[in-house]
């Protein structure tokens, strides 16, 4: 499918760019960036009604990245969408830069400052309530980690969002099953996610988190009228780089020169293979 091919190519290029940014900055949350980049690709290229021109429009769609540590993925997508020149990514994590290691509003396109976990869903609940109060047409999206769901504030907001029937709110769980110290199931099990969210009054759908068609299908409309939506995206931490996939140490691992060259070679090979196939 032409559309799908376009998104796959874009994601491969995003992966190359976010690895370059991390390598250049000497810091970054590589594993999570790679697990959520396909979700961000779909959001910013297919779902969100927001652009540099409409970013100050009160009716724009809003995206708050609750798992703020995966900021390199966000920066790369925002640069691609024209929110700021890509050269600015050279300054990520540098002294005096607006490009901090977690999202800040100093960077065009960033809605809210995040980084401490468990903040995105309450913020988005507030935005969604404002949308309902104003009868505004916008939708609000947030990206959570499965490890992040141990933060109790998520469940305070989950209760409130269902209480107010916020069908203009969609949470996406980047369910890569790993966190900094190991498997989420071992550190603090957040499953069964469908049952938890459903019992809080949310409409739930679990999708393969690197399947563009499935992501678009789950995100293009609220899942159910009168309920907030949650899309549990089954993802792979470190997705797309063979030696990074499902390895907890890549949570915030920065590739050395050799690892970087191998990673880029893998992505280049995938891009060539895809470009070799006629559309």
């Amino acid at each position, binding site marked *: 499918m032409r559309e799908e091919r376009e998104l796959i190519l874009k994601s491969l290029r995003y992966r190359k760019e976010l690895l370059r940014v991390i390598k250049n900055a000497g810091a970054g949350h590589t594993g999570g960036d790679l697990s959520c980049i396909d979700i961000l690709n779909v959001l910013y290229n297919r779902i969100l009604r927001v652009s540099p021109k409409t970013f100050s429009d009160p009716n724009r769609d809003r995206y708050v990245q609750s798992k703020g540590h995966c900021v390199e993925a966000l920066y790369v997508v925002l640069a691609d969408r024209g929110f700021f020149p890509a050269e600015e990514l050279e300054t990520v994590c540098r002294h005096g830069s607006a490009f901090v290691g977690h999202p800040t*509003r100093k960077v065009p396109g960033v809605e809210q*400052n995040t980084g401490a976990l468990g903040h995105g869903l*309450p913020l988005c*609940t507030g935005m969604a309530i*404002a949308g309902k109060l104003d009868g505004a047409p916008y939708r609000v999206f947030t990206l959570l980690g499965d490890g992040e769901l141990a933060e109790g504030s998520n469940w*305070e*907001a989950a*209760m409130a969002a269902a209480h107010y029937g916020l069908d203009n709110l969609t949470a996406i769980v980047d369910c890569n099953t790993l966190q900094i110290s190991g498997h989420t199931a071992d550190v603090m099990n957040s499953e069964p996610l469908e049952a938890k969210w459903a019992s809080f009054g949310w409409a739930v759908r679990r999708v393969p988190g690197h399947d563009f068609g499935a992501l678009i299908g789950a995100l293009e409309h609220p899942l159910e009228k009168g309920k907030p939506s949650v899309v549990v995206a089954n993802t792979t931490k470190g997705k797309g780089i063979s030696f990074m996939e499902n390895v907890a140490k890549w949570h915030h691992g920065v590739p050395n020169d050799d690892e970087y060259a191998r990673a880029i070679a893998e992505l280049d090979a995938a891009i060539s293979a895809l470009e070799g196939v006629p559309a």
Partner: protein
Amino acid sequence: MSAPAPSMHSAAAKTRAEKLGLRLERANLDEFADTLLALARTDANVVAVTSDSRGSGKLGPFGQQHPKQIVEMGIAEQNLVGVAAGLASAGKIVFAVSPACFLTARALEQIKNDVAYSDNPVVLVGISAGVSYGALGSTHHSLHDFAVLRAIHNVAIVAPADNFETREAVRLAAVAETPVYLRFGKAPLYRLPSAGTFELGRARLLRPGSDAAFVATGETVIHALLAADFLKERNGIECRVLSVPSIRPLDTGAVLDAARTCRALVTVEEHSVHGGLGEACAALIAEAGLARRFGIAGLPDEDTVTGSQAEIFRHYGLTMEGLAEKMTGLMSR
């Protein structure tokens, strides 16, 4: 039936207040609720967010008259502040109303990140602040709120001393472009002498004097004012009284002028002696190179004694008599 609340003031203090022509008004909390109601009436963008605190915040009439402008979050202070920040980011004028003890401790990270750091201009309203809850005990006291908020950039910290300061503070907070923390108690207060307009970052000179100075904030200001009058009559001391409604921005000029002019300076607050107005003034005065007789009247670093707000104030000398003793002790050292 509960026993009648003991008065904040001794018979002698009440007599002195009458002599000064001061009139007892209502609690700042009531003044806040009415001011907010008036704001909501003229601006549909004004929204109150509550954490099962509608009753304790005196927001019953607000909820009845403007049901679409009040958002209940249940007993969930973290979510209260996060939601308030989200509402503010979408253009609402948001008053997040919750007991000061929970608002500034339970939800401190939300205040730090979602409100202050993200620069969402929420008005954080800490109700029943200080030791207003009295005998309910330390879980319900907020003796830390100035300290923690002073260490967080981008929140104004305001503790009004009477109904006038409350009304003005609420109106200013509603149009502020950056976050504001307001703190109120629930005991009736005397109306302080008028002392010009109310501005954030401006101390109000309630009484001139160049021998000594009280620099007081919030609901302790009246006790400092009565103590100054008492000291004049008993000891012939001319004692300046500054009401400092905003701990931040602090009126550094007024504090430094008092420190330069007067031989002794006592700060007064319904807060821990650590990290509040007193230590803010101490740092200011020390950094200016001034060596002055200096005292901080507040709640000491100990397990707070049980009692009503009035009994706790008396126990720790936050009264006309206690403050007068503190000042004369300092001056005779």
